[in-house]
Each structure stands twice: as C-alpha cells, then as structure tokens.
C-alpha cells in the first residue's frame, strides 16, 4: 500500500474550509540560526595556533594535555563531532565527482589542518581533533607495537583511504562514518550497536597509544604525507643529546628514531641488494594490487542503492525500496542502464586504486630498506609524531632546563 499512498499524495480531497474568524497559523520552521560551520572554522584556527605555540614554543607536555582536553570538550562535546574533518575527504571526493555542492565551510575544515601540517606538523591530531584528543587522554600504560608490525598495520589506513574515496565518488556511501568509533561517546548515546565498537577501541587505546589514529584514520594518511614537508620540526631538546634513550621509550607512537651509526660495508651491500630486489618486484606488486582491486569491485558496488534495488527486483523480493521504486516513473531499463554504468565505473576505479595501493606498499617497503641519513642523536619522525609532548617530559636535559627556569 505504500506506493499507492505516494501516488495519491497531496490531493485536495477536503478543500480548505472558509472560516469566518480564524486566520491560518504560520508554519514555524526555524532557519539555521547562524552558519555554525564557519564558527567552527574560526575556533579550529585558534586551536591550531595555540596548539602550535604549546608544542613548539612552550614545549610542555602539560600544555599539550590541556590542549587535548579543550579540544575534546569543544569539538567532541559542544560541536558534537559530526561533521568532522576526518570524514570530510569523502564529502570532497563526492562533491568533486558530482561537480557540485562543496560547502566553503566543509572545504575549509578539510583544508586548514592540511595547510597547517605543512608548517607545524600534526598539531591537529594532537588535540584539535576530538578523536585524537579522546585517545590521548584515555591512554594508560603503553604497550609498544613492534616496528615491523607497526609498518604493516600502517598500510591499513592507506587502503581505507583509497577504498573510501572510490565509495564516495560513486555514491556508494561514506563508510568511514560507520567506522568512527567514538561517536557514541560524544553524543552520550550508548544504546546503539556502535557502542560495542567504541568500547573495543577505548579498551585497546588504554594500552596501545592511539589505535584509531595510527591504524584506521584515512585522513591521517594525508596529514602524514603533508607533515613530511613541515617547516617546523619537533626537536626533543636543544641541548646536546646524551643518548640516554629515555625519549624513545617515552614515545608510544614509535615516532622517535634512534641514532643510526655508519654502516659497515657488508651491511651496505645487503641493503642495496634488498632494494634492487624490491625494485624488481614492483611490476608484480602493481599487478597483484590491480587484480585485488578488480575482484573487490563487485563487492563494493553491491553496497550501492541502485545495485541493491536491482538485485531485489531480480530476486523478486517485495521490499519497501522495491515498492517505492515502482511508484516512481523510472523504468526497469533505465535502472539497469544506471547499474551497468555504475558497475563499470567502480570496476575501473577500483582496479586503478588497487594498482596505486600496490605502488604505495612498495614505496613503503623501499623506504624501510633504504639507508637513513646518518644521525648521531635521537630525532623525531615528524610524519608519525602526534605532538603529544611526552618526549619533552621524558628528556632529562629538558627537565633540568625547566627546573632551572623556575
């Protein structure tokens, strides 16, 4: 009966009566009070400036904690998380693909953290991102992820970024919004099935620092890339490093790199042999990635509304969607043509994304095998640093200086 009611929509079965002493009330639909997104952009700018000052000028762990706390309160609870910069790459991808509606506020929220990361690294992750802030504050004891495992897990966000971009471009959906594990906390609504996901992430986060930022967040991939070219580099101490190793042990995110001594000739030879082997493997990796993308395309497109509808029509299921479709003027041929076009598009994009992923995996492997620039002191990898300030607190020279200042 549902489709029938749509057909009969808005009919004047009962003409409006002519009243003697009664005026029609106004419809009370409130407009948006102010452009809240632009407000948020402004607050975000203030946060990023303050955060950069806390991290690069005052160099204090306590200030960074206060920054995270403020970020959690303002962006997590007052602005209630949605829409968040983390998921906004999907809006941008969809908007660009459809050639329409990218709200200036949305674009700004997406672009500002990236632009700032070119100058001050990932201060956004440090606390202005509510997801980062809650993980920063609810971290108890650090369990270190072994470096090879960390490297492998760090590829997950890259894959997610590619897959989610394909999904957004073809209107399949914004899957990241379902993976975002802290939303029930921000909305204080624990009666949803998503609360299980938040519990899991919060529990893991107690021991492994920032599990979402490091192994899920696709926006973090972009920030990681951009912050490689950051103007300001975090520096553990301005004094002469005594190589005490405390900062490396203090960093739960694996961003502190130990000093690399000059290699022996044998090590150098095995290293270069490994690199040439990896370079030889590149075509195979690209092919494997493409194959992976090609075969996952039907899975991706099956989540699209039209494809699901087509499947239901083919299987003869009388769902609400089928009834709603039959009440519209779209013919079955039009729907089928749309579905075929979509499936072809997804197939092409998914294969391309697979090839790209293969290339990125190889780039990561080669970067790992490559000899780093020789450094004699402990240094920070800016692309992995979440600007938490733990290394400042761990460094004995920094502590001594702070003590003298007082």
């Amino acid at each position, binding site marked *: 009966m549902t489709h029938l009611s749509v057909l009969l929509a*808005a009919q004047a079965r009962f003409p409006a*009566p002519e009243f003697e002493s*009664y005026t029609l009330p106004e419809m009370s639909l409130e407009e948006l009070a102010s452009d809240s997104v632009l407000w948020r952009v402004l607050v975000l700018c203030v946060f990023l400036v303050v955060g950069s000052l806390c991290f690069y000028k005052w160099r204090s762990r306590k200030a960074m904690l206060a920054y995270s706390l403020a970020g959690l309160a303002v962006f997590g609870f007052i602005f209630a998380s949605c829409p968040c910069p983390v998921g906004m790459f999907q809006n941008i991808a969809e908007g660009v693909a459809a050639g329409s*509606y990218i709200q200036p506020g949305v674009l700004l929220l997406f672009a500002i953290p990236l632009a700032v990361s070119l100058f001050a690294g990932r201060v956004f992750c440090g606390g202005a991102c509510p997801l980062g802030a809650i993980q920063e504050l609810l971290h108890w004891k650090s369990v270190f992820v072994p470096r090879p495992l960390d490297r492998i897990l760090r590829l997950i966000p890259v894959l997610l970024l590619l897959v989610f971009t394909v999904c957004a471009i073809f209107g399949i959906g914004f899957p990241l919004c379902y993976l975002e594990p802290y939303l029930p906390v921000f909305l204080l609504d624990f009666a949803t099935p998503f609360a299980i996901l938040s519990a899991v992430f919060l529990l893991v986060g107690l021991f492994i620092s920032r599990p979402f930022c490091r192994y899920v967040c696709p926006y973090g991939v972009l920030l990681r890339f951009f912050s490689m070219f950051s103007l300001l580099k975090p520096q553990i101490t301005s004094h002469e490093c005594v190589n005490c190793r405390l900062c490396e042990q203090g960093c739960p995110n694996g961003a502190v790199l130990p000093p690399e001594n000059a290699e022996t000739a044998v090590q150098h030879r095995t290293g270069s042999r490994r690199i040439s082997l990896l370079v030889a493997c590149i075509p195979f990796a690209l092919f494997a990635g493409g194959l992976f993308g090609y075969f996952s395309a039907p899975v991706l497109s099956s989540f699209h509304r039209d494809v699901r509808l087509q499947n239901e029509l083919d299987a003869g299921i009388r769902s609400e969607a089928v009834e709603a479709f039959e009440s519209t003027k779209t013919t079955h041929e039009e729907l089928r043509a749309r579905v075929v076009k979509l499936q072809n598009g997804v197939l092409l994009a998914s294969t391309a994304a697979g090839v790209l992923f293969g290339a990125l995996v190889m780039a990561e492997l080669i970067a790992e095998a490559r000899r780093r620039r020789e450094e004699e002191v402990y240094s920070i990898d800016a692309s992995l640093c979440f600007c938490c300030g733990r290394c400042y607190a761990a460094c004995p020279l920094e502590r001594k200086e702070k003590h003298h200042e007082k």
Partner: protein
Amino acid sequence: MTRRDLIRTGLLAVILAPFAALFRKREETGTGYFWQIDPDKCVQCGKCETECILPLSAVKCVHQYASCGYCLFCSGYYQDKRIEFNTAGENMRCPTDAIIRTYVEDPYFEYKIDEEKCIGCGKCVKGCLAFGNGSLFLQVRRDLCKNCNECRIAKACPADAFVRVPADRPYIYRKPPEVKS
C-alpha cells in the same frame, strides 16, 4: 630554495586552488547544502525515527496549514482501527500524543504538532496521506540536525527521499493542492 620548500609551496597551492573555483561556483549552487526530506518521495517507513545518530531524531512532523482540510475525523489524528472517536489512547494515531487538536468552529478542528513530543515516526503522515490532503509531512529540522558527512537516515531510506538542499532554502514544502471549484 630547497627541494623541500618547493614541494611545500606546491602542496599549499594544491590545497588553496579549489577556493578560487568555489567562489565562482557559489551563485550556481547556493551557499551550502543540508540534508532534507523530499515529502513527495517519502513513504513513511519509520526509519527516520530510528536511524538518526541523535538519541531523539532531528526529523519531525510539520503541518502545512494551508493545505489542511480541518476535518472533524482526521485520519492523521485517529487510528484506522479506532473503537470510538474520542481521545482515548487506543484511538489515537500518534504514539506520543504529539498532535494537539483545538476546536475552531463547527465542524472544523485545527491540528498542531507538539514538537517537544514528536519523534518523527511518520505514522500521522501516512494516515493523512491515505485519506486526507497530505498536509502533514516529515522534515529535517535545521536547528536539530548535525548535518553529518553522511546522514544515516539517508542511507537507510528505502525511497531515496533524502536530498541535499541549499542553505537559503532549507525546507521542501509540499505543493498546495489545487482547490476544486
């Protein structure tokens, strides 16, 4: 200028480039976009009530008085299987008693939605469409909606009734019915 500086400038330009295009496009597409329900596509499946990320859905019923028939026996107000035409709970369509009925003049009654109570289930909308003028319909309230990156109701909507609207026209009204003369 080092290579690193060059890359930084290039990336910054890439980030800032879309803004130039954006302001040119501003007039064509309106100043923004928000989720809204197209009342003509809506099939009142009830998912608006349950799928919204907010504990109490941002979707509420609105009443377009201009197309209301002010019926004595309103099919949005009374259940199909009512026992009597009175305000006892078993006779009412609205599960939360959010429709306020006031007497205007014989035999006409005004129906008003109590927004504090409305949960956006769309039962009254269905009733109104089935036998009445369709003056009741569901809309996403701008003052409540978070405008998520992806609306969960839009994803679950079987009729694809969720559309994006520009900020200066955030509501979709039903066309007032043609009055038979």
